[in-house]
């Protein structure tokens, strides 16, 4: 229909179409506009997930990768009872996520409070803290990896302070912590932005009322500000958990999961399972388990967002 004809139908004086008919047209348009995203969702998430689920009930022949055999839950049983590395990778990932999310949330909160104080050029200094999120993880990994070397700049700093040099990534007790520092350098500024927005949402009168009542800065922060910041804090914790759950780049570039599997993240385990060991079915089984955990966390994240609507 041409533009003119349509104007004639809905414009001056001509009878309007019945409501139902209009809505039906809107509905079709709605579905059509959402279609590219639906296709992307199916192709980039749903189909590979279903594929992994299907594959996880099978085993491929070592000699002929096209030969597939149905094995039921055998892959799952193997992972939890016999796999030499799977449970270790779960342990490493959980420890890393808890450490990293805790460190990042506390630091991001402290910096959010600092950068909402009055001062000169505060939004510019804040931007510099935020900048590392834009730097590719591979870049951060090689730069920090070089800094963490035995003869690197961090040990140079420790020497200057008169302290002993540390092995960092070369030690099984320090490697995970070192990656936590690297991940926090990347992430803290990003999560800080969400907390700053949350802090700015708190009306000044609330804080002023508290200080008029004679509450000190610390009292006001812990009994007024923090409870009002509950939702953005919850969002940061949940979204940050998702962001760090599939950490891969530092392990792949810097540690190869070592020393002694101490940085064998789940995503690195899946990758080596599929491409080094060549056991795609086992890799897909781990992917199914990871997807279940991630879906649960993401659903919580979505509920946190929805509650606001």
């Amino acid at each position, binding site marked *: 229909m041409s*533009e003119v004809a349509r104007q004639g139908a809905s414009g001056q004086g001509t009878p309007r179409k019945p409501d139902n008919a209009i809505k039906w047209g*809107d509905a*079709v348009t709605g*579905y059509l506009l*959402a279609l590219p*995203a639906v296709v*992307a*969702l199916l*192709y*980039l*998430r749903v189909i*590979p997930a279903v*594929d*992994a689920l299907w594959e996880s009930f099978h085993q491929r022949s070592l000699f002929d990768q096209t030969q597939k055999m149905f094995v039921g839950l055998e892959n799952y049983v193997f992972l939890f009872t016999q796999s030499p590395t799977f449970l270790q990778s779960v342990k490493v990932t959980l420890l890393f996520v808890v450490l990293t999310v805790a460190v990042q949330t506390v630091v991001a909160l402290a910096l959010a409070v*600092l950068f909402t*104080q*009055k*001062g*000169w050029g*505060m*939004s510019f*200094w*804040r*931007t*510099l*803290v*935020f*900048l*590392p999120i834009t*730097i*590719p993880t*591979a*870049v951060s990994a*090689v*730069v920090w990896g*070089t*800094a963490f070397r035995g003869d*690197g*700049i961090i040990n*140079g700093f420790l*020497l200057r302070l008169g302290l002993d040099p540390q092995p960092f990534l070369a030690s099984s007790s320090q490697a995970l912590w070192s990656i936590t520092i690297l991940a926090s350098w990347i992430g803290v500024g990003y999560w800080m932005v*969400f907390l*700053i*927005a949350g802090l700015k949402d*708190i009306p000044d009168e609330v804080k002023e009322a508290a200080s008029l009542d004679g509450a000190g800065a610390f009292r006001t922060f812990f009994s007024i500000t923090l409870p009002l910041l509950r*939702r*953005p804090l919850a969002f940061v914790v949940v979204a940050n958990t*998702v962001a760090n*759950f*599939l950490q*891969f*780049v530092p392990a*792949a*570039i810097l540690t190869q999961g070592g020393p002694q599997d101490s940085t064998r993240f789940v995503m690195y385990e899946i990758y080596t399972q599929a491409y080094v060991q060549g056991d795609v079915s086992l*890799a897909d089984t781990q*992917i199914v388990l990871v997807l279940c955990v*991630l879906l649960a966390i*993401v659903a919580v994240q979505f509920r946190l*967002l929805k509650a*606001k609507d």
Partner: protein
Amino acid sequence: MQQTEPKSPGLAVFNTALGIFVAFLFMLPVIWMVTSSIRPNAEIFRYLSPLTIWSVVPTRVTLENIVGLLQTGFARALVNSLVVTMITTGLGLIIALLAGFSVSVLEFPGRDVLFALFVVGFSVPFDAVAVPLSAQVRDVGLTNTYFGLALAGLGNGFAIYLLRQFFLGIPRSLAEAARLDGASWLRILFSVYLPLAKGPVTAAGLTLFVFQWQTYLWPLLVASDPSMQVGPVALAGLVSLSGTVDFSQMFAGALFLSIVPAGLMLWLQRYFVQSVARSGMTG
């Protein structure tokens, strides 16, 4: 950003000093990266132990590293990264715009469920399904293609969420008036909603760009051909392929890969910060 005049100058000076100190701490790795990329390779580790001012201030400045790096095929990888990221940002933005508009302005059965599926589905990190997806992509012959590489970042839940939240805040009467004038929904999106949405569109585009620019696992799986290598993978190759690492070239590569997204963010960050503040993701 509204910056009220400090009431007590002493406290403001203290806050500012602390703010500068924190910013300096976060910028230290970047400063080290920049200065190391323009000093001769032999001097990078020479002044590190113990730390002195010469650890981060070059005594001799050279552009050899950058010239040498660009001769290694790194330039090609950078161009690949740019092409792939542009495809993702362009297509991803169109997908997110259409979907965000659909689930906020149009009314149809199952609309809220669809929105939930988009956000939840796309919020599951792409890497989680990268291994099975790489087999799918191989089957349709998209390995070692720009489009295959660009697939990683196409669907972005955060972008759809930002745009939907913004569109919900635009009075419906605007759309209804345009409707009565006979405008199609697509036309309403592009001539009524889009001009108002500069901020959230910029924020969504920035998110898509930064995500795709840093992808590492996906290119590893679908671009085995050296001529299709992207920047981050080429950088990792500089470190692990050769037994002896040319650190000055590595730092130069790191610098190149950081300048593009960091520059964009410095330029456009206020849109990002505003969109986050307005999105209802807080408070």
